[in-house]
């Protein structure tokens, strides 16, 4: 029977939760990288044994960990002990240096600070790793301050796709409360040259040439917290998601508003419908039903917990507007956790499994598309990210 491997990044290490296809009994491995923040982990679609992890610390900086055996053992590419004294590896997994070359664009030196003044670009951490759909050694990284990096040698070395920051609006980008992070990378499964990314709080951007050139795709977004609510950039997009069969349709959880586009981001429209609040962070799409989507409403931008203390996933089977609350197995009183933007995922099994993690350390699983939920674990450190691998 096939199974699943749930990759959980937390404030104090990583955990790997495994189960068979029933998704009832779980094995918990961890903490890995104990004490370090694990912003994100994700497996390669081309080789499920290859997993990348972003390991970060305010004290010691950024590391990228890599596993070649499904998470049993890990290495820091380029950081291995050298057999001969004086020999250095050719790369460094943690060397993220903004591109300042004249050949590859017009690198920005500043973005906007919270108060609107220019602020130098400073690398802080990797928020998101996105392995290539076809090549286990190719992986993208979304970083803070917002930029896109790529490695083609298994995370041994990185270079910036400088056309993103350099396309023209970079100087206007401003951090959200959590920083100026590039947090979402979606690879178009039908068009290898098309990539969507999202930045808080700049908005969404798309490339159609594999990352050389980029453009904002934010038409239709309205944000009352910026001087021009319809501006080209400046929108605090929290997460975007797509279904592999319809990659021109994107769903978005914005700071406020749940949105969708059916033309690859050229035009967005609101589909918040009857949600109790349209603030939130996560959004995801059912594995087999491209119009079934999930969000977890959060009370407001000032109160990051479920409304009324009831943890409810909302599901729409109509691609938005009409939503139903999913509550079976979720706490319906005194629940004041948050669900961060990279903390929801779905598996590919016949009955699609839906997963999300909370800042209270719970990871919930629904093995039946959201109808019933169970906590796989109750007491992990605050969960920063959840990804799922469906195993053969």
């Amino acid at each position, binding site marked *: 029977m096939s199974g699943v491997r749930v990759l959980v990044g937390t404030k104090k290490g990583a955990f790997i939760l495994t189960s068979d296809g029933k998704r009832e009994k779980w094995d918990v491995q961890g903490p890995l990288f104990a004490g370090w923040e694990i912003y994100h982990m994700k497996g390669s679609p081309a080789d499920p044994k290859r997993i990348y992890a972003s390991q970060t610390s305010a*004290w010691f900086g950024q590391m990228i960990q890599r596993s070649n055996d499904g998470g049993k053992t890990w290495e820091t590419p380029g950081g291995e002990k050298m057999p001969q004294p004086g020999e250095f590896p050719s790369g460094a997994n943690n060397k993220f240096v903004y591109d300042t070359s004249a050949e590859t664009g017009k690198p920005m030196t500043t973005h906007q600070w919270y108060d609107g003044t220019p602020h130098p670009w400073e690398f802080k951490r990797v928020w998101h790793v996105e392995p290539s759909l076809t090549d286990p050694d190719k992986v993208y990284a979304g970083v803070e301050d917002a930029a896109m990096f790529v490695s083609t040698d298994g995370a041994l070395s990185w270079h910036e796709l400088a056309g993103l920051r350099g396309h023209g609006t970079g100087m206007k980008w401003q951090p959200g409360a959590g920083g100026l992070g590039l947090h979402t990378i979606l690879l178009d499964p039908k068009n290898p040259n098309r990539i969507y990314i999202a930045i808080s709080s700049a908005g969404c951007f798309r490339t159609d040439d594999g990352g050389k050139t980029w453009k904002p795709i934010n038409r239709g977004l309205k944000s009352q917290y910026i001087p021009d609510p319809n501006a080209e950039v400046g929108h605090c997009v929290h997460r975007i998601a797509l279904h592999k069969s319809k990659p021109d349709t994107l769903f978005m959880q914005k700071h406020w508003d749940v949105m969708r586009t059916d033309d690859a981001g050229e035009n967005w429209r609101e589909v918040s419908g009857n949600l109790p609040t349209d603030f939130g962070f996560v959004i995801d799409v059912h594995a087999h039903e491209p119009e079934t989507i999930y969000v977890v409403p959060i009370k407001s931008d000032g109160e990051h917990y479920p409304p009324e203390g009831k943890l409810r996933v909302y599901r729409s089977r109509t691609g938005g507007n009409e939503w139903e609350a999913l509550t079976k197995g979720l706490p319906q009183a005194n629940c004041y956790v948050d669900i961060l933007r990279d903390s929801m995922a779905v598996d590919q099994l016949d009955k699609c499994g839906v997963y999300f993690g909370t800042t209270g350390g719970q990871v919930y699983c629904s093995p039946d598309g959201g109808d019933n939920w169970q906590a796989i674990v109750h007491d992990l450190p605050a969960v920063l990210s959840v990804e799922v691998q469906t195993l053969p």
Partner: protein
Amino acid sequence: MIRVEIPGHLKTLAHVDGELQLEVAAPVTQRTVLDALEAKYPMLRGTIRDHVTQQRRPYLRFFACQEDLSFEPADKPLPDDVVSGKEPFLVIGAVAGG
């Protein structure tokens, strides 16, 4: 041998226990000690000093012989007791209690 103490998280990263011992050719300075440390343990590159600027990361300090050497020039010779191995060179993380 130069003795070096690094924070626990970096020991985990480098797969080492306890105090490290390094062979460092003269002159023994912050720079040559850290160069030797990173040569022996490449996974530590970028964790103590910035990759590009080679500046000490903000939340780390350098101590030895009950002195704060954090703001000393990188090429200034370290105290004799560090050079002789009597005292360790300490890489200390800023305290985050609470």
